[in-house]
């Protein structure tokens, strides 16, 4: 499916992924690969299973009781649903940023240091990592001099970028974004969006969005989900300009969704 990037082994490989709730099938037989140092967009109408899908990629799905996962998600060849795999370690390597900013009620500094404290990192290292992470999230110039300020006092857009900095601090290999700008005003959203160009230099970035323009702007590959099925995936340009499936064609031209 990802014949366009020969040689580069995918970071994440999803095979025959099916997720069922007691009453219905939320995702059925999704297979998809994610390459390193690339932004992949997941698009689809509300209720298509985008959020469930991205939550299977770092086992956050475990926190929703009653959902059964079949198939496999391999991170660098290792099935994250395999026997003996610790979801805590999976999530340290595959970070996640949510739809609404979820800063902790602590100082800016402690928010970014949160993951490092879990890993019992030395304070000297923590300081430099906090600085580097805030810089990479485009926040250092804005709030670098107020690190003791409570994070909840920041604006929504700043909070969201703080969440990105927090995720970056523990050096994940993959970053998952679940509608990262949908709760932000246009200017704050743009600032978050501008980060993706930088982030993809170091990480595999996967972003769920219902904003088609956003997918077109930031993603080099795009996958279209509809009613729990993967309808089509490929290079973003091709998917938007020459969709192979008529459902894709209908969705991107705004005939439903």
């Amino acid at each position, binding site marked *: 499916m990802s014949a366009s990037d020969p040689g580069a082994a995918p970071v994440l490989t999803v095979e025959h992924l099916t997720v069922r709730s007691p009453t219905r099938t939320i995702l059925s037989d999704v297979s998809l690969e994610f390459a390193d140092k690339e932004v992949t967009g997941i698009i689809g109408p509300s209720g298509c299973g985008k959020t469930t899908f991205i939550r299977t990629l*770092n086992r*956050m799905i475990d*926190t929703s009781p009653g959902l059964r996962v079949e198939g496999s998600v391999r991170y660098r060849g290792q099935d994250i649903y395999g026997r003996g795999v610790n979801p*805590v*370690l999976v*999530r*340290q390597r595959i*970070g*996640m940023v*949510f739809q*609404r900013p*979820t800063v*902790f*009620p*602590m100082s800016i500094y402690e928010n970014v240091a*949160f*993951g490092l*404290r*879990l890993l019992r990192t030395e304070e000297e290292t923590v300081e430099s990592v906090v600085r580097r992470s805030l810089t990479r999230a485009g926040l250092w110039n804005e709030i670098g001099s107020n690190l003791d300020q*409570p994070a*909840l*006092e920041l604006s929504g857009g700043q909070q969201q970028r703080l*969440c990105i900095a*927090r*995720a970056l601090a*523990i050096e994940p290999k993959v970053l998952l974004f679940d509608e990262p700008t949908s709760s932000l005003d246009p200017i704050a959203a743009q600032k978050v969006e501008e980060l993706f160009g930088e982030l993809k230099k170091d990480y595999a970035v996967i972003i769920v969005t219902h904003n088609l323009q956003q997918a077109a702007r930031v993603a080099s590959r795009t996958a279209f989900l509809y009613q729990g099925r993967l309808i089509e995936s490929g290079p973003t340009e091709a998917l938007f300009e020459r969709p192979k499936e008529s459902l894709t064609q209908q969705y991107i031209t705004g005939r439903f969704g």
Partner: protein
Amino acid sequence: MALASGVAGPANGADLLTSTGRLRRRLVFDRVIGWALLAAFLVVLFPLFDMLYWVSAKALPTLTWGTLTQNQVGTGGGLYPMIVGTFVLIGIATAISTAIGVVAGFYTSEYAPAPVARVARIAGNLLAGVPAIVLGYFGYFLLVIYTGWGFTALAGGITLGIFMTPYIYRTTDVALTNVPPAQREAALAMGSRRGQYLVRVAFPIAIPTILTGIFFAMALGLGEAAPILYTAGFSSTPITSLMSPTGSLAVAIWQFYDFPSTYGSFLALAFQAAFLSIVIVLVLNVAVQLLSDRYRRRLRGLYQ
């Protein structure tokens, strides 16, 4: 002027901004309900103020510095041993009930499988519903008779602790369960284990509520005579060790109030003990407000 077909707007020409007809009747009704609610509120407040007035009126005229510093002598003297005893008993009880209640709350809010949590919550509610005197007898048989300790401050403190535990457990459980789920998601997505989430994220958020629960339990425990009556016993001299009996304000009220009025100053001591209990509860209340406000300030913006 009637409104055409019930739709607000000019009927013919003039646009009335004063209410008439049905709308006017509704406004009157609204006001009547407001007065009725105020009346109900006053009815609730009346017993409180009546009690405060009655206790103060009987206690204040005879209240002296000696009441706080002297031992009880015969039918008079002061309440010093009972004040100290009350603080010792509440101290032991708070330590025990906070330790058990908070840990149990941690367990059911995060770790316990749903059916276990459900049973634990029901058990907690049941324990809160057990009459204090029954707990008192439980403590008496277990900690006074069975252990052979006799009446001791320790037995009283433990029994009072059991009495206070369900309140602290319940507030801890609720406070932790009510932490916004997004906080849990974010912590777990950062690679927290559940225990790390509890200690580093949920507990700091829940602290103001947990503190309120602890102080509420202390205030309740302060007023209870039944759990300590047959466990801590009574003494009119200051406590010498945890293994000796001790007086307390609650039991002092219970004991002294029942004497016939010919023993005059006993009754005064009972009212003074009641007055001091009320003052301590009041101070506790103000303290917890100030303390939890300080913690709450940190959380501004979290629940939006």
